[in-house]
C-alpha cells in the first residue's frame, strides 16, 4: 500500500539528484575538481551531527544547513592548506580535509549513538544514504535547489564556460572570476548536501563525476555535455532505484553508482569517435594498409631490377627484404589479390596491372619525399630513407602533386632511382 508512495518519492528524489549532479558534475570535472567534490561531501558529515547535537532536532532543513556549513569550511580548508603552507600539494590537502573532517563526523555520530536520548538513530543514513526515508518535504527542498542550479547555469552559461576554459582571459575581460568560482562552489555544496540523504557521503562524488565523465565521451560541446550528463545521471538514478527496489539485497546508493559506472564503461569503449574500440579499429586499419602498401612497394622494387613487374616472385624473397614472416606476407597478398592488385599462386605472388599502378603511387611518394628532404632540408642522402618510409603512407595525393610541383618534377631520387611519373587518369 505505502510501497508506491515510497517508491515514487525515491524515484523522484534520485532522478532529481541525478539531473543536478550530472549538470554540476560537468563543471567539477572540467575544472579538475572531481576530488574536491569528494572532500566536500566528506566534510559535510560533521555538520549534520553538529547541527543535531546543538539543537537536538532532526529537521532536515537544519541538518542540511549544518552540512552546508562544514562542507564550505572543508573546501576553504583545502585552499588554506595549499596556499598557507606552500608545501602541501592539493592532493594531500584534499586527503587531509576528507579524512579528518570525516573522522570528526564519525566521532560525533558514534557519540550521538551512545547518548542516552532515544532519538539518536537516523544520522548514520548520511554515510551510505537511505532513500527510503525521503519525505515529500525533502523533495520540495530538492526541487528548489534544482531550480536554483538550473537557472544559474543557464543564466551564467557563457561566463561559466569562460571560467572553466580560460580563467585569465576571462579576468582580463573584466568578469569577476573569483565571484563565479564562489558561485559554482556554492551550487556544488547545495547539490552535495541534498545528495547525502540519497547516496551518502562516501559515494557522492560518483553522482557528480561519473555521469559527466561518460557524457564527455559522447560530445565535444560544453552545452551538450551538460545536457547529456544530466540525462545520464537521471538514467543511472532511475535504473538503480528500480533495480534495488526489485531486489532485497541491493542498496539503492551503490546500485545507482554501479549503473552509472557501467554506462561510463560503455561510453569509453563505444562512444562514436572517442570510443576506444573505434580508435583501435582505426589504428588496425591503418596498420594493415601500411603493410599492404609496403608489400606493393617491395614487389615494385624487386621488379625494377629486371624492368618486369608482373613476373611471379617467391614469398621467401620478400621475407628477406623486410624480415616479415611468410605467413604474414601470404595474408597480405591474399588481401591484395582480393582487391585485384596482385595474383597469388602457391608460394609465389605477382602484381597485376592495377597493382602496378598502385605500387608506383607509393614509390612515387617515397622517392619524392626523399628528394624533398635532401634538397630543401639539406639532409644527407643516407638519412632520408626512414623518414620517407613513414611519409609514403601519410602523404595525400594532393600533397604529392604540390610537392612535385615545388620540387620542379624531378626524375630521379637522391639514390639515383627513377621516380615513377604521375598516372594520368
Amino acid at each position, binding site marked *: 500500500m505505502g510501497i508506491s508512495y515510497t517508491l515514487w518519492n525515491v524515484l523522484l528524489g534520485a532522478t532529481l539528484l541525478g539531473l543536478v549532479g550530472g549538470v554540476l558534475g560537468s563543471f567539477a570535472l*572540467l575544472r579538475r575538481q572531481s576530488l574536491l567534490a569528494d572532500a566536500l561531501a566528506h566534510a559535510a558529515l560533521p555538520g549534520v551531527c553538529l547541527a543535531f547535537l546543538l539543537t537536538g532536532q532532526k529537521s532536515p532543513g537544519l541538518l542540511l544547513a549544518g552540512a552546508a556549513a562544514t562542507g564550505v569550511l572543508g573546501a576553504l580548508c583545502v585552499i588554506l592548506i595549499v596556499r598557507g603552507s606552500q608545501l602541501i600539494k592539493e592532493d594531500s590537502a584534499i586527503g587531509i580535509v576528507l579524512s579528518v573532517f570525516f573522522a570528526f563526523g564519525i566521532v560525533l555520530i558514534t557519540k550521538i549513538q551512545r547518548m542516552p536520548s532515544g532519538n539518536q538513530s537516523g544520522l548514520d543514513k548520511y554515510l551510505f544514504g537511505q532513500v527510503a526515508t525521503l519525505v515529500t518535504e525533502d523533495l520540495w527542498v530538492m526541487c528548489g535547489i534544482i531550480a536554483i542550479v538550473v537557472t544559474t547555469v543557464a543564466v551564467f552559461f557563457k561566463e561559466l564556460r569562460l571560467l572553466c576554459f580560460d580563467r585569465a582571459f576571462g579576468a582580463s575581460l573584466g568578469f569577476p572570476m573569483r565571484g563565479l568560482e564562489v558561485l559554482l562552489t556554492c551550487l556544488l555544496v547545495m547539490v552535495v548536501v541534498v545528495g547525502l540523504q540519497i547516496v551518502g557521503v562516501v559515494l557522492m562524488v560518483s553522482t557528480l563525476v561519473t555521469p559527466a565523465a561518460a557524457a564527455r565521451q559522447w560530445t565535444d*560541446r560544453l552545452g551538450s555535455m551538460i545536457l547529456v550528463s544530466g540525462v545520464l545521471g537521471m538514467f543511472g538514478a532511475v535504473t538503480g532505484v528500480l533495480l534495488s527496489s526489485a531486489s532485497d539485497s541491493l542498496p539503492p546508493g551503490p546500485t545507482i553508482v554501479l549503473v552509472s559506472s557501467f554506462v561510463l564503461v560503455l561510453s569509453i569503449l563505444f562512444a562514436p569517435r572517442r570510443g576506444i574500440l573505434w580508435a583501435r579499429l582505426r589504428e588496425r586499419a591503418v596498420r594493415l594498409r601500411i603493410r599492404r602498401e609496403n608489400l606493393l612497394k617491395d614487389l615494385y622494387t624487386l621488379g625494377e631490377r629486371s624492368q618486369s613487374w608482373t613476373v611471379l616472385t617467391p614469398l621467401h624473397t620478400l621475407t628477406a627484404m623486410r624480415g616479415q614472416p611468410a605467413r604474414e606476407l601470404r595474408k597480405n597478398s591474399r588481401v591484395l589479390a582480393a582487391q585485384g592488385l596482385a595474383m597469388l599462386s602457391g608460394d609465389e605472388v605477382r602484381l597485376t596491372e592495377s597493382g602496378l599502378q598502385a605500387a608506383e603511387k607509393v614509390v612515387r611518394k617515397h622517392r619524392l619525399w626523399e628528394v624533398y628532404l635532401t634538397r630543401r632540408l639539406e639532409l644527407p642522402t643516407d638519412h632520408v630513407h626512414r623518414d620517407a618510409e613513414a611519409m609514403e603512407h601519410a602523404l595525400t595525393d594532393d600533397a604529392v602533386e604540390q610537392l612535385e610541383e615545388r620540387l620542379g618534377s624531378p626524375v630521379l631520387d637522391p639514390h639515383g632511382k627513377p621516380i615513377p611519373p604521375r598516372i594520368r587518369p
Partner: protein
Amino acid sequence: MQSTASFLSGSKASIPPLEVHDLTVAYRTQPVLWDIDLSLPEGYLIAIVGPNGAGKSTLLKAVLGLLRPLTGSVKIYGAPYAQRRSWVGYVPQRESVDWDFPTSALDVVTMGLYGRIGWFRRPSQRHTDLAYQCLEKVGMHDFALRQISQLSGGQQQRVFLARALAQEARLYLMDEPFAGIDATTERAVLTVLQDLRKEGKTVVAVHHDLQTVAEYFDYVVLLNMRLVAAGPVGTTFTQENLQLTYGGRLTVLSQAAEALLAQRPGVKEAEMK
C-alpha cells in the same frame, strides 16, 4: 574650434598606449619585476625580450591586472586598465589552457566578444559572423566547428589570435605568439601582426626567438627583472644591450650574436623542419 580639434588630436597622439610607472611585482615574497618604468609608442610591433624568468609574462599579467603589483601603476591610454578593458586584446600562452576542453574553435573565438556582449546575453548571429570573419583572417575558417583538441599546435595558436582580433582592441598583449608553431602559422601570425600595425594598432608580444626580433618587430623592450633598455630595434637591439640582458649566459649570447649577423638565405628553411 580648430584649436580644440588640434588639441584633441594632438593629445591623442601623445598619450602612449601603455605606460608603466615604478612597477614592482612579486610572487609570494620574491620580486620578479623590479621598479619598471616604461612608456610604449603607438602603432608599433613591440617585442618584450629577455631570458627565462625575466618576468616577461609577469609584466603582461600585471598590465592586465591579473597580478597585483607591490608598487606602481599601469596606464592604458592614460587611464587605469579597468577603464580601458575594451581597448585591450589579450593572447595568453597556448599552454595555459586545457585544449581537450569540449568546445569548438568558433566558440573560443566568440569568447573574445564576451566583454562586448556583457552579462546575461547570449552571442547572437551577428557575433557568430564576426567570429567567422576573425577566423578567416588567420586562415582558420574551415576549422571553425572543429573541436579544439583536433587542431595542431599552430592552428590552436591561430585560434587564440583570432579570439584577440575579435576583441577589436587598440592595444594587443600577446604572450609568446610565436612559440612552438609551424612555419605556415609563423607566417600567418606575422601577417596578422603586420595588418594590425597597418591599422594603427599597437602590439606588445613576449618573444623568445632572438633571431627573428629584428625581422618581425619595430621596437624592443629588453627585460631581465629590471628594464634593461627599450627603444626602436635598430638602436636598442644591440650586442651590448643583449649582453646586459642575458648576462653571462654564453649559449644565449652566441645565439644573440648570430641573430645580429646577416642571415644566410636557406638556413632558416632548413631549421623549420
